[in-house]
């Protein structure tokens, strides 16, 4: 079936993706033609699969693929089917070379390190080109429990008299990866009325008043796909307005997109009968959301038993490695410690558990609860950035000072150095500094680099970070098993 899908895509490529730039699967804003219901796109380790559960989509005039604002961007600019409905830094670099930096992806508003930089220069877009980052600019919340001061500003945006902290509209610029706009029935799965991480009510859908999952966007600032689409159009696309009908069509499209790796060069087909049931985009479409997988009988990514009894062939050996990686993810215990909104909510610090404790939502590996935690990727000293002074440091650093009367950050206290305050820029809470919503684990091969700040160039660097962060003492073989496991998701 998938081979047929590839053929369908190939046959329709000239028509369907007429405005693709030659040689790549990049879909430019304003593309015409049909995006087929099933497609496969090459990734560094194989192919990522795309499935549109509602059938093929005519792109011409569709608001997801059509620029709605003044800068030529559309939703598809940052949510590319060929790149797991996100994009990779490598794809951005390739696009820069092919278009001379003229593609709307590099729009000054947030595709540059700062709008006031010379836009024709590659270095003005270094964070996008090197890390795949988009500038996110937010005001300091009025109710902030902290003061925020700039420590260093490699991009110059936070010190800009027009765009910075001391500008007429004081703004904090942070830089984050676009999240994959796929598998969203999982990501937007409604939460219980009360968020256990906050001991307070969940945000609500402004249209219905119902509680929402608070599990998409790095800082959970958007309640629904509808509000996200509206603000993305007004912000990223610099639209003056957007109609309810356009928003409805965008959300309708997003809700039918499923993405997962479908072929691995070493493992072979990931969607063959009798294989692991969680793999491939069809499994993503078929499964139900909202299932807690932190258990030994209905696990996060179901089971890989059929791959455990491998023979001596290279393919079977690789599959056995993937299965070991799945077991490590589920069962390898370590001291999970100093993570805000995990250790601080009554579980104790440290907690002797496994990866699946936090990454527990079946099929995606997000958290079934509101997913923001301070793993440490953005906060000194556990951040992903160089531990010592470095001229090469490219992200801003802020000093957060908590007011004396508020609860401090549970594990960093009252003075925190951070490259991205995360959820705290929305909630205003000191305890939330550095808390970032977990991302889903699907289609990873198509959309490096990883972490919200694009700091991990590959899955090895992701695994290495966790190994250091939690002193897991993973062996080389265990690391490779985990990398292989993550790579087939």
């Amino acid at each position, binding site marked *: 079936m998938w081979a047929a899908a590839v053929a369908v895509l190939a046959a329709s490529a000239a028509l369907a993706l007429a405005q693709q730039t030659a040689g790549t699967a990049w879909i430019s804003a304003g593309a015409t033609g049909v995006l087929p219901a099933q497609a496969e796109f090459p990734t560094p380790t194989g192919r990522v699969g795309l499935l549109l559960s509602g059938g093929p989509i005519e792109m011409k005039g569709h608001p997801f693929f059509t620029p709605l604002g003044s800068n030529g961007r559309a939703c598809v600019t940052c949510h590319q089917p060929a790149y797991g409905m996100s994009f990779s830094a490598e794809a951005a670099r390739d696009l820069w070379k092919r278009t001379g930096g003229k593609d709307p992806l590099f729009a000054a508003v947030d595709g540059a390190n700062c709008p006031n930089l010379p836009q024709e220069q590659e270095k003005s877009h270094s964070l996008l080109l090197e890390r795949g980052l988009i500038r996110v600019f937010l005001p300091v919340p009025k109710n902030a429990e902290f003061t925020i001061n700039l420590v260093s500003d490699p991009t110059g945006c936070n010190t800009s008299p027009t765009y910075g902290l001391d500008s007429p509209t004081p703004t904090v610029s942070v830089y984050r990866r676009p999240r994959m706009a796929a598998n969203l029935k999982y990501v937007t799965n409604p939460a219980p009325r009360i968020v256990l991480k906050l001991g307070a009510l969940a945000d609500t859908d402004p249209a219905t008043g119902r509680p929402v999952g608070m599990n998409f966007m790095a800082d959970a600032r958007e309640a629904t796909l509808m509000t996200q689409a509206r603000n993305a159009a007004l912000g990223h696309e610099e639209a003056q307005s957007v109609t309810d009908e356009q928003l409805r069509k965008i959300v309708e499209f997003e809700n039918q997109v499923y993405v997962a790796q479908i072929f691995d060069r070493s493992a072979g087909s990931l969607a063959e009968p009798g294989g692991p049931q969680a793999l491939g985009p069809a499994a993503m479409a078929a499964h139900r959301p909202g299932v807690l997988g932190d258990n030994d009988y209905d696990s996060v990514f179901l089971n890989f038993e059929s791959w455990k009894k491998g023979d001596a062939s290279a393919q079977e050996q690789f599959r056995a490695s993937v299965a070991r990686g799945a077991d490590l993810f589920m069962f390898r215990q370590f001291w999970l410690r100093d993570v805000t909104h995990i250790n601080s909510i009554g*579980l104790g610090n440290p907690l002797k558990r496994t990866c699946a404790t936090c990454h527990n939502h079946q099929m995606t590996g997000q958290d079934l609860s509101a997913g923001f935690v301070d793993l440490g990727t953005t906060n000194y000293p556990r951040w992903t950035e160089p531990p010592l002074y470095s001229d090469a440091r490219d992200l801003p650093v802020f000093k957060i000072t908590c007011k004396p009367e508020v609860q401090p950050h549970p594990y960093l206290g009252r003075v925190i150095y951070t490259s991205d305050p995360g959820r705290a820029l929305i909630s205003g809470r000191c305890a939330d500094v550095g808390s970032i919503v977990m991302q889903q684990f699907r289609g990873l091969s198509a959309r490096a680099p990883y972490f919200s700040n694009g700091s991990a160039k590959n899955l090895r660097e992701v695994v290495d970070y966790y190994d250091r962060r939690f002193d897991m003492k993973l062996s080389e073989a265990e690391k490779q098993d985990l990398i292989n496991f993550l790579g087939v998701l």
Partner: protein
Amino acid sequence: MLLAVLTVVQNAAAQQRNFVACPFVRDTRTVPCFLAEYEGETYFLAVQQDISADQYPPQLLHEVLVEGTIEPGPRVCGGIPLKPVKLSVLPELNPACNTILPAEPGIDAPPMRRQAGPSSRQAPAAAPPAAPVRPAPPFVEREWKVLYDFDSAFLFSRDTRTVSQAAEYAVASKAKHIDIVAGRGATLLSSGKVLIEGGAVASQRAERVVTLLKGLGADPASVNVRVVSAPAQPDGKTDPENRVVSIRVSP
């Protein structure tokens, strides 16, 4: 008679342990134990469970306020057990509280339903679980209490369950009055020192509970709030009960 009463009171006081210390962690073959030392003796505080538990463990990098009574019987995980015991994670950082001890033969955690890895399927219950009981008439005046960690207004999972019950009852009974009384505590330590909670904590507790009640459907017009800003007089025995928000629902 008077002497006997005095002796009983003295014995009770002798069994009470109120102290602030760094907790430390003892690994075991199963889940880790949390312990603390006070005056040369080791006390067992808690064991790792999950958020459905009634007793939450303390946290490294923070001191813990222990308010407990020695429970007769064998040591648990190498420490003298305290029961009842109230553990409060103190908010400020203390980097010195950072000790994890390895597992030792002969030191075991008490049996727990939830092990260290992912959860396992529990044995099927003898009878199917009872359906949730919805509040039903006749409605009478009822009261719920939320007890807090020292200097904390955070509502843990166990606490939000309590507030949810109160809200559900208020909605079902169409409560005319929901009276909230928020308190601030002080604790008499075994050393004789007194700890007093921060001045704003009672109002913070009230605010969070009221917000939750209203969000869960309680009629805002029926909610009356009283904040008792003065800390209760500590007695070294019942002090945790003063760190409280009471919710009285009157149909």
